[in-house]
């Protein structure tokens, strides 16, 4: 059920911090650009900042309201991101529809029937293999099945994890907000530090643009993100858990960059989408979060176990 976000004492502090972050980002960009407003208004950077002014409050509101509002946002992300992956990978439409459908089913199961969550991947594999079996179209089916499976693990399953953790853990909402903001900051800081510091290439054969300077940016961005939203960090999280969280978010952001790059290169496509102004596709915007979220969650659980 949707909730009144103002009833949650965490809402206003988080909302204001996120908005302040965007305003500070806008000011920093304006100062660094030193271009006339008219020229700047037509730039991609302007579109990106404008997009953040929409995405930021929308995400915080949806996360705190929950219920079908959050479900609608998650549905949009699953549908668009799965579609984009299907295009990048050249997946046939019937496999793409199954990927989207199972992605949606995953959101529902995570929210309403958590006991069956463990069955989702296996159930998807059964449904996926039934497609060529029942249709009798087996030419290239092994590649279609394999690529669709990658899409499921890369996009749809992590989205279901986000819903699962948010609804199952008492600190699920805090975790979602902290990880999402930190991943976004980690990506932005990586871009800024990579452009400013440059330095040696990290993996030039996989991603010729990623540098060690960018990796440092990832780490700083993740740390600033967690620190900025310290108000949302639950008291039961130990300092060790928070440090691990920062490290895992930074590492997952780097991993997401490299994975996204190798996937595009492997499929030899440069599929561009225009869903998010200035950024292209939804997948491009959420891939780091999708990879960081489950990893950070299990890292946190592991640290809690070890500390106990």
């Amino acid at each position, binding site marked *: 059920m949707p909730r009144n976000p103002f009833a949650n004492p965490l809402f206003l502090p988080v909302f204001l911090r996120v908005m302040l972050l965007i305003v500070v980002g806008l000011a920093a960009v304006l100062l660094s650009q030193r271009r006339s407003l008219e020229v700047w208004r037509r730039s*991609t950077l302007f579109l990106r900042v404008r997009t953040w002014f929409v995405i930021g409050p929308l995400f915080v509101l949806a996360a705190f309201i929950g219920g079908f509002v959050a479900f609608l946002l998650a549905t*949009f992300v699953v549908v*668009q991101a799965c579609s*984009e992956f299907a*295009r990048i990978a050249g997946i046939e*439409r019937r496999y793409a529809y199954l990927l989207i459908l199972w992605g949606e089913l995953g959101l529902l199961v995570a929210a309403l029937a958590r006991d069956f969550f463990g069955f989702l991947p296996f159930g998807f594999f059964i449904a996926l293999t039934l497609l060529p079996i029942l249709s009798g179209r087996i030419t290239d089916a092994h590649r279609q099945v394999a690529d669709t499976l990658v899409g499921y693990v890369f996009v749809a399953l992590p989205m279901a994890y986000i819903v699962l953790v948010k609804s199952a853990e008492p600190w699920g909402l805090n975790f979602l907000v902290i990880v999402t903001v930190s991943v976004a900051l980690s990506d932005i800081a990586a871009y800024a530090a990579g452009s400013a510091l440059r330095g040696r290439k990290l993996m030039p054969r996989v991603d010729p643009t990623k540098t060690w300077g960018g990796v440092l940016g990832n780490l700083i961005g993740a740390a600033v993100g967690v620190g900025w939203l310290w108000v949302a960090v639950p008291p039961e999280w130990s300092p060790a858990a928070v440090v691990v969280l920062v490290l895992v978010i930074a590492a997952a952001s780097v991993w997401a960059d490299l994975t996204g790059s190798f996937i595009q290169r492997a499929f030899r496509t440069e599929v*561009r*989408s*225009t869903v998010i*102004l200035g950024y292209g596709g939804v997948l491009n915007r959420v891939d780091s979060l999708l990879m960081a979220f489950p990893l950070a969650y299990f890292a946190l659980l592991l640290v809690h176990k070890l500390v106990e």
Partner: protein
Amino acid sequence: MSEREQSQPARAGSSRKRAGVPTYSWARTPPARLVRSGIQYGALVPLLKFISPFTVIGKRNLSKLNGPAVFVANHQSHFDAPISLAALGGRVRRRLVVAAAADYFYSSAVKGAAASLTLGTVPFVRSGGSSRDSLQFLKELVGKGWSVLIFPSGTRGTGPSGFKKGFAYLAVDAQVPVVPMYLNGLDQVMPKGSFIPLPGGVVVGIGEPIPPGDDYNALVAKAEAGVAEVRAVVKGWEGA
């Protein structure tokens, strides 16, 4: 029926049915337009934004119009008309008809009525002598202040070339400008042969209005060049 349509009783009988194809004039009456606005604002546009979030480039070109116009666009998908309507905005959409293939969209009465009511389509016979009747009917609508959206290549899966002359007859004879449009990305959302959309982003480019002039062939060439120009802008924007 609108006031201007009611003022022409001599044509009323013929406008109900031309060359065996009903004209669905009820779909342009004020109550039907009100229902259509409700459907488009309340369901169609939000649904399209969810399935195919679209970005419109060059919308300020529409402010240069001060009367009806003929909008021409490349044709890729059954989504072209709804996305174009959503991209053009309420001001243009209120008095806009879409020329739709009579043999496809009006193959049954229910299909035709649904298309006419929700999208404001009018049947357009694509071949034979009846296509002249269709053009004549569109000219009459333009004369009454309606704009027309037409896909001049006549079939899906085409680029900004190979336009048929019908729209030029319409624009030159009625002396209304032609507005070139380019739709990008819909070939992946719902290509020919597909009936379920695969969601994805779309860009709609709107070019500067082209004066009709008095030469049909020259207008066809200008419109093709106009659509190609908008295409270049869209592609350049996408790659930015």
